């Protein structure tokens, strides 16, 4: 536990240093920031939007916005929280641009673009696992936009409820209610075989 906290603090310090260097005009520092955060950014965007293509576009837009506003960011503050807000907003904007998020999620489900297709070399168990992944995405697609954002940030990103509330611009009570509703719906979907 102590070791984990120490690692987290070291990572935060390293990020703060990269931000200061990027703010001073060091282009390689921003490149390193992208390298350090791209995996998590893409994963979050994919969970929120439900397909890889939109996730890539939203993640790219999020990094671009971060670059534009980095000059005004206080490097001593929590970069991750600030950047989470940017990612969620970029995903919302992209979903709005393409109709609305729910319908784009549904359309992706119908077209089969949500899950990576199983290759012929996949074993039976791998094929079943891929099928289960698709089912989880379908379950997520049943949620409202706000429920999905809350449950993804809380249960998949592992953020505390208060942090989720800050990112979504809601109160912790509202977020708890959305999480409770989302868990109930997900359980009901899972039981519906």
């Amino acid at each position, binding site marked *: 536990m102590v070791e984990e906290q120490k690692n987290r603090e070291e990572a935060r310090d390293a990020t703060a240093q990269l931000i200061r260097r990027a703010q001073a005009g060091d282009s390689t520092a921003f490149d390193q920031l*992208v390298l350090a955060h791209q995996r998590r950014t893409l994963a979050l965007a994919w969970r929120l939007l439900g397909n890889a293509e939109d996730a890539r576009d939203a993640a790219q837009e999020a990094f671009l916005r971060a670059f534009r506003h980095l000059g005004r960011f206080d490097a001593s503050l929590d970069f991750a929280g600030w950047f989470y807000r940017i990612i969620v907003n970029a995903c919302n904007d992209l979903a709005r641009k393409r109709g609305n998020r729910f319908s784009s999620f549904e359309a992706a489900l119908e077209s089969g673009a949500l899950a990576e297709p199983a290759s012929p070399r996949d074993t039976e168990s791998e094929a079943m696992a891929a099928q*289960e*992944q698709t089912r989880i995405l379908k379950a997520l697609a049943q949620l409202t936009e706000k429920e999905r954002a809350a449950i993804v940030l809380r249960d*998949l990103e592992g953020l505390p409820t208060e942090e989720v509330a800050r990112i979504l611009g809601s109160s912790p009570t509202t977020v708890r209610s959305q*999480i*409770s509703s989302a*868990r109930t719906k997900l*359980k009901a979907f899972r039981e519906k075989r």
Partner: protein
Amino acid sequence: MKCAQAENLIPLFVGDDLAPREADALRAHLASCPQCEARAAEFADSRAWLQSLQPPAFDDLRGAVLGAIQAEPPRGGWFDRRRAPRWALLAACLLLLAGAALFMRRGPAPKPAPDLTQVARPEPPLPESRRIDPPRFDPPTPRRAMPRRHPAPAQPSPTPADLATTSDEMLRIEMQTEDPNIRIIWFAPKPGASTNPK
């Protein structure tokens, strides 16, 4: 705790989202209620199922991000250096607009207001012929003066004008507007006078 209450708390309990006191109360209930305990286990399984979702492998995003940054118009330093003059220009425009709006609202310079102290003296009651009028006062038309010149013979009810000239407790203020046919007459209780009818 009743099962209905427990049912509402279980979805939050499985993710450790309850306050410690609520969580303890629910834990005690689950220990004594097999049905609710089974329900909590189902919720925990469902949460674990969701957490098994694994995103696909993505290509490196750095090339695309750096390409997009380079394709951006040169906003960074350029924009920052010129931000202050932009704000100054905006502030100057707003000030100009506010000034213009104020000028248009005021219109031409106002004419000097009549000296109210000269007309706000109801007592002693002046005869009609000696009333002090503002400089641009036009004499009342005969039609307006008619009721006073020809009062009803049997106990006429006093008009406000009569009150002003006859009552010790009323203050009368007259103002002549630019329109010679419109005259504003304002009656008010005299300061310090009793408002009770005698």
